[in-house]
């Protein structure tokens, strides 16, 4: 091809490509502003922690004579608590519990809601990665007692970049006993709450 014709031909081809809409296009991605929280555990049924010492009086008495702590006998579908935030603002996780509901022959004295405690990662071995570090970006509590008053247990400014662990699960629950508890069943519902005001 003659050199003088080459440049105009290329320009025409490029122009034809542009005119047919095959040359350039924009890609726009919009990520939603969202917050989410989940208790990790597969399958149907409650996410539950059970301290069933009714048939194990030896362990109960040993705990009373020892450090007074009972650990879960069963953890059901509660292997982690995770949060996901795409926003750069501050978010907080709070916890609140219903009063202990008692079923048994006594009056339900001796055991209080505050006797149920969570010590983050103590027995699960989990480590949180939802809060980057203690300081300006966020903070978290190492342990807390259940209460009917909503209490913050973790807070952070900024996105989590996906689902991130709060560093505890059902294994990290414990109950403080003194030996003066009425026999029977005590039940509470614990709610983990995520907000970003």
């Amino acid at each position, binding site marked *: 091809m003659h050199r003088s014709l080459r440049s105009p031909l290329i320009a025409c081809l490029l122009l034809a490509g542009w005119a047919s809409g095959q040359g350039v296009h924009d890609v726009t991605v919009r990520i939603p502003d969202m917050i*989410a929280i*989940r208790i990790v555990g597969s399958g149907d049924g409650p996410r539950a922690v059970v301290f*069933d010492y009714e048939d194990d009086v030896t362990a109960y008495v040993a705990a009373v004579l020892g450090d007074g702590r009972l650990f879960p006998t069963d953890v059901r579908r509660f292997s982690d608590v995770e949060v996901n935030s795409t926003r750069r603002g501050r978010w907080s996780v709070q916890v609140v519990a219903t009063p202990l509901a008692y079923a048994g022959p006594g009056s339900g004295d001796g055991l209080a809601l505050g006797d149920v405690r969570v010590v983050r990662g103590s027995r699960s071995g989990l480590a949180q990665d939802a809060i980057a570090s*203690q300081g300006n970006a966020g903070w978290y509590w190492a342990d807390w007692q259940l209460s009917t008053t*909503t209490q913050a247990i973790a807070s952070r400014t900024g996105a989590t970049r996906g689902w991130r662990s709060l560093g505890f699960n059902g294994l990290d629950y414990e109950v403080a006993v003194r030996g003066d508890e009425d026999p029977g*069943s*005590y039940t509470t519902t614990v709610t983990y*709450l995520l907000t970003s005001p």
Partner: protein
Amino acid sequence: MYRVLLALLTAMSTVAYAADIGISPPRHELVATAGETVVTTVTVLTTATLDQQVTGETSDWTMDIAGGTAFLATGSVQHSAAGWIELDAAAFVLPARGSRDVRLSVTVPPDPGLDGTYHAMVFFTVAPPPSEARGVGVITTTRVGLTVYVTVAGTERAGSELVDLYQTDGRELRAVILNTGNTVMRLSGEIQLRDEAGAVRHRLEVPDVPVMRESERELTFTLPNEVEAGFYVALALIQDSRGGLLAGELPLEVP
């Protein structure tokens, strides 16, 4: 009637118990005139592989000077918008790995005395299952809160001050911001740590947090480990979302 009851029982029996819930967006900032109704939506979503029963309810909330929130019964706080909000569904089934748009109708009462920003929280809670535990049983579930701010149009009054900037101990700074206006303000900006020559050595980001109307907010800044001992000037440059810059400076010695 029997068929309806049977269908209801069948629907309830297919709802499984998970604890996985999210919302988008997490906050609505609405503007309406007195007597006006504004309609908006929030998407409730889940990654659970099972359908979940979800309940929605409004609540009041307050914020203390440190940013801590407390939740209270609807209508129990001044400047509450909780009673203005109506949900199109107070209870619904959230489909597995799905979402549902919930419509909020927010009606500002036709009261000419209303002014500034009112606020509320809308909770969406995964309904926990009935207890089946023996002994001490802890049933857990999850909840997300949609923050709603409603500002009465034409009544806004802005105004803010940096009341204090001080060093609490060697490696911690605190800034106190006063919102003198009647609307919610949000913060941004930074605190610069300048050396004796005036060069910016470190920047501490001011978090995106609200300061409620006619109230104070105290922010705590922990100096990062990389801030070396020495003399600095902390220059606070804090943005008010309604416009304006709050500035202040503090000479400090970092041990």
